[in-house]
């Protein structure tokens, strides 16, 4: 649910619940995006060809 939905009310319950959901999703989304971008940049620099853990 977003603030532009007809059910939205600017009260504490909506802000805490939905704010918490977006916050968690943002951390996960930004985190995984960062990992993908960094991996792509490292690959472009030629890293990771023969190295193994």
């Amino acid at each position, binding site marked *: 649910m977003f603030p532009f939905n007809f059910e939205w009310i600017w009260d504490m319950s909506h802000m805490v619940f939905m704010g918490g959901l977006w916050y*968690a999703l943002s951390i996960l989304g930004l985190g995984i995006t960062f990992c993908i971008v960094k*991996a792509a940049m490292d690959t472009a620099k030629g890293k*990771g060809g023969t190295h193994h853990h």
Partner: protein
Amino acid sequence: MDSALIPKGVKRCPIWQFALGLGIVGAVLLWGVYAMLLCWFKGLNQTNMNDYYGFALWIWADLAVIALGGGAFFTGLLRYVIGKDELKNIINYAVLIGFICYSSALLILAIDIGQPLRGWFIFWHANVHSMLTEVAFCLSCYFGVLTIEYLPLVLENRQLDKVPFVHNLTHTMHEHMAIFAATGAFLSFFHQGSLGGVAGVLFGRPFAYREHLFIWPWTFFLFTWSAAAFGPCFTLLVTRITERIAGKKLVKDNVVQLLAKISGWMMFTYIIAKILDTAYWAFTTAPSLGFTLKDFYGTNGFYNYGWLVAEIIVGGLIPALMLITPKIRANRGMLTLATVLAVIGVCLNRWVMVLQVMAAPVMTFDEWALYVPSWQEVATTILPVAYGVILIMISYRYLPIFPQEAELNPITPEDAEGVQASGDSEPVLATAQA
């Protein structure tokens, strides 16, 4: 093809044996899928749920697998945030078990809502006054965390790892896993708690109702605590079962002992809190609502005092004492027994907090309402177990789940010759001997 996918330095069973195992478990899975389709196409009339049991076997299974999957968030917290480095040797398996448990929970919920196509309503038309909304949010987000934690393990497959981008992605994700693990622990704290909170706020159900700390009933904290305490026991138990089936040791004793010790102390402190909570409820809360302990345990042949003893003493205090006693914990048989008792204990706790709550009479004219699940409910509850076994089989065969496996089970020249002659595997002696 198969041998090229198996991790280096380890030995796996022949492909026919693996396929046979998959076929047997797959048959059980299909039985569950058939029952699931019946529930989706014909509706919830396929179940024995009724006006007394809006929550039934599925919700118990949901709460139980979520508690048992708690090993993932707690082990992740210990490994990535607190810095218990030894646990890196079991964290992969904890994540896999957690992934199975949470995907199973979501699958069960998808069946339970009857209309899975409307599953997204809980996010779009959220009831922001419901603890279950918070559970749904945290559960979905945490499943995302577990997927992110499981993904590098999949990408570490021998063939996938050869792709430079995949290799770099795995490396980067491992480097930043602490962020995801911390987010997972935060989410778990709230959804585990809210699952307990749902029972504790039922002021119309004196069997479940508990006193509050601010807005949170005591069951909120007890559920989170118990998941953190008992979840690692399930990880240890499944590890032990895997070792027995594989016929070899997969994790070193010091790792198992550390996790068992931490789990034991968590269980011990939890069970003290649980006993205090039960005593306060029995002697203060319930009497204030017009009930005595006998009303809940002494008037029905099925739900008797044995449940209380089984949950708190047999499934709680005894395994906790076993795990915190070094001599008993060091004995593998006793350790396994303690984990079995602990798993039974936490499942009993969830059963009581879901089904006994529904069964206990509330009004003076009420009677105990007992419930027997339909075969469709049983089959769809066994379905995730079969799915879990299959995912473990595939992951164990093709992914480097146990980092210590090659070191603990060096491949001898005879092994290498025998396996290569049958064309089943391609062990690499150099890696195994390293």
